[in-house]
C-alpha cells in the first residue's frame, strides 16, 4: 500500500519518504509484536493452569468413567480455557478450570445421551440386605480403594461430582457451588445425600460379598 502512494507524491520532501519507511518498519515490528504477545499469553496461561491438570483429569475421569473420554475432555477444556483466558482475572485458577472441565464433561455426557444423568443405582441397593452390615465392618472395608471406587461409580453423576470436589480437592462449599452451578445453600444437603447414598452403596456391595 505504501509504495504506490509514495510514487504519486514523489515530488514531496525527504521527510515524507523517511516516514513511509518508519511505517513499514512499524508494521513489520507489529507482526512480531503480535506473535510475541501470543507467546507471552500462552506462557502465562500455562504457568497458571498446567499445575491443575491432575485435578482436571481426576474430575473428568470420575464424571465420565472412561479414560479416553476424560483425556479428550481435559484437552478440550484447556483449549476453551485458553481462548477465554483474557477474561480471567481471579486468583482461583483451579476452580475456574474445574468449572470448564465440568461443563465440557456434561456436554459430552448429554451428547452420548448417557443414562448416567438419571439415577440408576436404586435396584441394586434395594435388592440386597445391606442392613446387616455393621458400622464397624463398613468402616473397616471403606479403606478398600477398589470397593470405594466401585461404590462411587454406581452413584449418579451429580453425587460423584460433589464427592470428588469435596473429598479429593478439598474445595469449600462456596467453590463447589460455583463449579457445580448450584446455590451455596444446597451444597450441604446434596453432599449429605451423596454421602448417604455412598454409604448405602458400600454396604450393599459388602452385603453381596457374603
Amino acid at each position, binding site marked *: 500500500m505504501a509504495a504506490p502512494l509514495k510514487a504519486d507524491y514523489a515530488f514531496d520532501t525527504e521527510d515524507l519518504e523517511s516516514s513511509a519507511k518508519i511505517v513499514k518498519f512499524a508494521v513489520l515490528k507489529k507482526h512480531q509484536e503480535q506473535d510475541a504477545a501470543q507467546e507471552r499469553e500462552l506462557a502465562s496461561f500455562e*504457568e497458571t493452569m498446567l499445575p491443575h491438570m491432575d485435578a482436571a483429569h481426576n474430575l473428568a475421569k470420575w464424571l465420565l468413567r472412561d479414560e479416553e473420554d476424560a483425556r479428550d475432555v481435559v*484437552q478440550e477444556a484447556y483449549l476453551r480455557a485458553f481462548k477465554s483466558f483474557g477474561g480471567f482475572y481471579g486468583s482461583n485458577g483451579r476452580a475456574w478450570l474445574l468449572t470448564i472441565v465440568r461443563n465440557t464433561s456434561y456436554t459430552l455426557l448429554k451428547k452420548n445421551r448417557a443414562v448416567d444423568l438419571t439415577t440408576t443405582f436404586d435396584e441394586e441397593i434395594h435388592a440386597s440386605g445391606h442392613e446387616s452390615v455393621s458400622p464397624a465392618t463398613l468402616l473397616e472395608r471403606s479403606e478398600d480403594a477398589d470397593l470405594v471406587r466401585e461404590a462411587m461409580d454406581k452413584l449418579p453423576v451429580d453425587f460423584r461430582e460433589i464427592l470428588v470436589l469435596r473429598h479429593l480437592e*478439598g474445595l469449600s462449599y462456596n467453590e463447589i457451588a460455583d463449579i457445580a452451578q448450584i446455590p451455596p445453600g444446597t451444597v450441604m444437603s446434596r453432599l449429605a445425600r451423596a454421602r448417604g447414598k455412598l454409604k448405602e452403596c458400600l454396604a450393599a456391595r459388602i452385603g453381596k460379598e457374603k
Partner: protein
Amino acid sequence: MNCEEATKLMDGYLDGELDPITSQTIEQHLRECHNCDQAYKTHGSLIRAIGNATPYFKAPAALRERIQSSLRQEIAKEPVRNVVEDFPPLFPTGQRRTVPSVIPWNWLALAAAIIFAAIITFNLMPRLQRPGSDQFLATQLIASHARSLMANHLTDVASSDQHTVKPWLDAKLDFAPPVVDLSSEGFPLIGGRLDYLDNRAVAALVYERRKHFINLFVWPAASEAAKAPKTITRQGYQLLHWADSDFNYWAVSDVNPNDLQTFKQQFEVRTPHH
C-alpha cells in the same frame, strides 16, 4: 437444637462450613445427646476413611504433552489480523478524499513514532525491571516445594510426633524452630526436612491437608522483618508469609487459600508465644 436439626447440619459441621454460632449450638447438642454424638463420630470417621481411600486419577504425562502441543497449534492457526486495520482510522472514510494526502502521512509518521516508542518501551521494560526479592524468594520456595514432592524426599525425619521432629531439627540447625502437630485441626504433621533458602539452612515442616501437602519453611527473622502477612499466588501454588518476633514463616501448597489461612491461624494459636 433438636436431634433432627443436628442431623441435618452434621455434614456442614463435619466440613467446618457452618457459621460459628451454629457450630457452637451443634457442639452443645453433641455434648448433651449421646446418640447424636455417636452418630457424628461414626459418620466422621467413615467419611474420612472413604475420602482417603477414594482413588485420585492423576493426569498421565502423555496428556500434558498432548495439551501443550494443541495449545501451540491453536496460536499458530489463529490468523494474524490485518495490520492496517489495527491503526485507528485517521479520518472518517467519507472525508478522506477531500483532505490533502500530505497531512495523513505526517499523521502516520506521528502514529508510527508513537508505536515505535511503545514497542521499544514494551520490549525493554521487562529487562530493566529486576525481580523483587520476594518474587525471587517465591520462586525458590515453589521450586523447593515442588522438588520435595517430586523426588521422594518430602521428609528427612518422618514422624507425626512433634517431640521427634523438633529435637531432630534442633540438632541440625543453629536455631530451634517451633514444631506443632495440627492433626486435631485437620493438618497432620508428616515430618521435617532440612532445606536451603535465601542463602541459609532452613527448617521445612511438612503437613498434610487431605491429599495435599503443605511445606512450612521456617528460619529466624531479621530484626526489621515485615510483620504483615502476605499472600502470593504463582503457578497455581499458594504462598503465605508471616513473621513473629523470632521467625519468618513461608507456607507453600496447592491447597485452597482458605485452608492455608486456617493453617496459619491454627499454627499461630498452637505456637507458644515469646
